[in-house]
Each structure stands twice: as C-alpha cells, then as structure tokens.
C-alpha cells in the first residue's frame, strides 16, 4: 500500500540542522492498523507526515500503491491526498467559522461532486461517529471528544483507503479516548488501513503492529 525506502528528513533553520529521520524503511500493508510509538521528538510525526504526503523526504522514496510520488507536482500530490488519505490530528484542527456539517464536507469540496451528494455523505459520516444530531453546531459548542469525532467524520467522509491519526486521543480523557479508539478499530475492521501515532501502550496493543521510532530510526 505505502512503501518508504531509505527515507531521510532533515529540518534546517538558519543556525541549526536537525536530522528527524534517517534511512527509514517502512511498508504499510493494505488493511493494517499500525501504531507508531516513541519518545517525543523521535520523528514519529515526521514519519506520519511523509506517509500522508504532507511533507517530502530529503532522501529516499515514498511509493503509494507502487507508484513513486517523488516527482509529483503540487496538484497531483493534492489529488492523491484527497483520494487516498484521511487525517486526524491531536488538536482536531476543525475550522471554527464553519458548522460541523461544513467542516465534515471539506474534503469533498476538492472533488467534482454535487452539493447534495456532498451533504448526504457528510451526514452519513457524522451519523457513523454518533453525531448526527450535532450537524448545525459550531466546533466550540462541542466537547473535546465530540470535536475529535467530527474530525474522524471529516477524515472518513471521502472514504479514504488510509487513515493517518497523529495522537488522536492525546487531548482527550480516557473515556473519550476509548470511544475514539473504538471508532478507529471499527473502521479498520471495515477495511480502512490505519496508521496511528500514540504514546499510549494500551492503545498500541489493540493494533496489528507496533512500529517503534527512536532518534529518527525504526528500532523494532
């Protein structure tokens, strides 16, 4: 599904050069639920960003469905992100000006799709995460757990093949975190590939595979 070969990534500022990832090889298979663990600053999020094509590697290659995307242009990468990936962020990143339903519709705006169809799919996605009654609310009218469920609805509304979740339960209490985890597991059972960054060993054990990152390299 997604293959990273000899991937390195260095961040440069005026004075400092930080090696975030070094010669990483990773293959995420279709239908897997992979947990990525490691201490803060070890490169987990960088790895997730590379998998989700939010960032480009300094060296090495990234392949999606066997196609290297190294030379893809902005528009091609955007289209691939839109059709293949769904993102869930630790701090939700919902757009405060938009209602819940409009937030969920967002990925579909960048597809050729009628407004009615977009609205139908967004409703279905919200119902799937149990928020069918909150469509017309604004994000700040919801609890943290509900906001994360809206973010999950937004991530799945376009029926992506891969869900990428960066510490999706990091800002939630354990009960809400459990609920979010249940939803991710259910989506995985339905066939969606999930890659999740987490600090929580208990959550990681519920996945198929744990990838450990340390100092920019995979250690297990």
């Amino acid at each position, binding site marked *: 599904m997604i293959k990273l070969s000899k991937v390195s990534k260095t961040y440069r500022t005026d004075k400092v050069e930080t090696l975030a990832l070094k010669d990483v090889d990773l293959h995420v298979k279709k239908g897997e639920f992979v947990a990525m663990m490691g201490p803060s600053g070890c490169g987990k999020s960088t790895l997730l960003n590379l998998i989700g094509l939010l960032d480009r590697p300094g060296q090495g290659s990234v392949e999606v469905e066997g196609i290297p995307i190294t030379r893809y242009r902005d*528009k091609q990468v955007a289209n691939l*992100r839109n059709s293949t990936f769904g993102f869930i962020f630790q701090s939700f*990143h919902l757009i405060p000006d938009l209602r819940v339903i409009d937030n969920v519709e*967002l990925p579909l705006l*960048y*597809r050729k799709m009628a407004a009615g169809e977009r609205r139908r799919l967004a409703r279905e996605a919200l119902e799937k995460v149990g928020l069918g009654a909150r469509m017309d609310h604004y994000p700040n009218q919801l609890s943290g757990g509900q906001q994360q469920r809206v973010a999950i609805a937004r991530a799945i509304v376009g029926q992506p093949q891969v869900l990428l979740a960066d510490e999706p339960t990091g800002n939630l209490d354990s009960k809400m975190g459990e609920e979010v985890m249940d939803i991710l597991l259910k989506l995985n059972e339905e066939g969606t590939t999930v890659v999740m960054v987490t600090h929580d060993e208990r959550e990681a054990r519920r996945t198929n595979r744990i990838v450990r990152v340390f100092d920019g390299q995979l250690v297990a």
Partner: protein
Amino acid sequence: MFRNYLLTAWKVFMRRKLFTAINLLCIVLTLVVLMVIASLLETAFRPSGVEGKSERFLQVFMVRMESPGGNRVSNTPLGYKLIEKYLKPMPGVERVAAVTLPSSVSVYQGPNVSELKLRRADADYWKVLDFTLLAGRLPTAADDAAGRMIAVLNASSARRLFPGAPKAALGQRIDVGGQVFEVVGVVEDAMHLNAYADIWAPISTFASSDYRKELTGMFTALVLADSAADLPRIRDEVARISRSVVHDDPKAWKTMRFWADGKLDLFSRILTNSGETPDSGAGKVLATIAVAMLLFMLLPALNLVNLNTGRILERRSEIGVRKAFGATSRQLAVQFVVENVLLCLAGGLIALAATAGVLAWLESAGLIPYLRVDLNLAVFGWGMLIATVFGLLSGVLPAWKMSRLDPVHALKGAV
C-alpha cells in the same frame, strides 16, 4: 466550490467584525475619491445635458501663431473674422457656431451690482447646444442680424436679479457694463465647458464692430457635424484651412495653426500645450490619469496587503487542514482572492452610496458653479471595476504567499 468560497468569506467577515470594518473603511475612502473623480470626468467628457451632441461636434479654441524666426509663439483664442471667413463656409458640416469665452461683467439692477459671466453668441450656438429653456425664447439669427439688445439669463442669475419664477425676469431690463439689455429668455443652469455662463447676448451687441475684423480675439468655434463619422474628415479640413490662413501682419506672425478637437482632445491640448501637431496629447493625458489613479490605489492597497497577510496568517491552521484534505495552492489562493474581491465589492457598493452623498454635497455647496453630476451606470461600472482591481491588487500577493505555506508548518501554526 464558488458557493463555498462565498460561505467561507461571509463567515470570516462576520467573525472578525473589527477587521472587516477597518478594511471596508480603507476601501470605501479610496473608492469614494476615485469615483467622485470618475463622475466628474464622466460629466465633463461624455455627451450629456446641454452638451448632449458633443459626440458630433468639435471645437476650435486656440490659434497658435509663430513668428518668422520661430523665436516667438503666441496661443490665443480665435477672432470672429477667422470663424466667419474660414470656418463658417466649410462644406460638409451641419453648422458652425461662434461664441465668446465667458467674461466678467457688472450687472446693475437698481441699487444692486452683481458680477456675472457673460458670453456673446450667434444664433447657431443655441442650436449646437441643448439648453433647457425655462421661460421666454432663445435669440435667433434675426436678433443677431438686427443687433437687438436682448439677453438670456440662467436660472440662478434670473432668481438672483428677479426673485420669483423664471418668467418674472422676462421683459425686464438689465444694465450690463453700461449696455441695457431686455431679458427674453431664462435657461437652466449649466456648467459644461461651452455652456458655462450666467448671461448670454447676441454677438452683434458688441459696442463696436471691430471684432469682425480680427483673426484673433476671444471667440471659440463649435463645429457641428451631420454625424460622428464625419469628425475625422472635419478635423483634416480644419487643419488644411489653418495652413491657408495668413495673418494680417505676416511679418510678425508667419504661421497660424488651429485644430478641431473633441472635448477630451481640447482639454489635453490645453494641458499639454500641444498646439503644434494634430496630436492633442490625449493618449498621454489618459495614461497619466490611469497611472495616477493606480498610484492612488497603491498606497491603501499596500496597507490592505498588510492587513490581509495578517488576517490570512491567523488562518494558518485552516490552510494546513485544507491542504491536508486535498486543496491545491491555487485553490487556496483563489479562495483568499475571492474573499478579498468580495470585500472590495461590498466596499464598492458602500462607496457608491457615499459617492452619491459627496456629489450631492458638491452640487449644493457650490464649489463648482452649476455642477450637475449624476451617478450613472457608466460610473457604477467604473466603480465596480475599480473595486475589483483594488481587490485583486491588495489580495493576490498575500493570497499567493500564504497559499504556498507548507501544510506541516501551517498545521503547527508556523510560517
């Protein structure tokens, strides 16, 4: 997609009301100034009101005379002889009118003395311009031929001299610089270039007939064509005539040149002092006005660029999310530009209302005598065009810059 742009724009405007208000104020102030200028230019140069036929008349306003050595040049208005002898006989024109430039005269009315602007015009003048007659009649060729001491007043002067309805002035006698005239007509006030005056009298009412012998003097000629298509031919014909005119004192003045110009050309020729060539310099004047307007827009536009960059920067996270879910840099840039153009168009609509207010004030304040200026469709169109250009000018740069933010950094809230 466009509906979504509109929706997002509306939400953003409503959430940041203070920012929206400051932005709108900046836009409205700039556009009001530009639209007032555009309205005045429109009124001055488009065929309208008393100069409704100006699309098919030309003016001969100045004679440029050069001494044999070329060391002396004189630009002076036309004399009646030049109009009567050389321009009036011109073939292929509907009519040629002669009128003096407005001159200040003292009008005595009982114990009161008023300073008014007087023009002396022939009968053709009243047929070239479309004055609105409020009472009485306009002078005729017979009046001119007979040298009748009659006068036409504009409404303001009639009201000032003879309070009451315009017809109250009819039949009254006024002393204009020692000559007594009977008022035979009252016309609506007009401020157009060739119409501006308070009082008109036939040419033949000059105290002396010396004016008939002068090639230069204080006249201007209005040449009315049968159709606008004839104007280029008439221009050429007038240029040809000018080459054939010989000054009464050829030793002092070797050449006499004059041109038939439209209103814009005339204005440009005076402004650029282009009396030597057929080119009036209108192209340069228009380009200068366009550049000046653009520069005038540039300063507030730069200010808006700053404000917009700040506003968009606040939405880094949104940029990151939209990119993560498939938005291209181009789509985001278009979104931000649409937001800005919408804001500017809203500002344009407010500015239109404000401009109408400013113009109404200008009319009533009397800063420009007899000004009648309307916000017509053309000015509305110009206003909206200016607003759009302004929106693009101030929106494209920040939109382009911010849309290129790397999604990872945008999501982290960094630039």
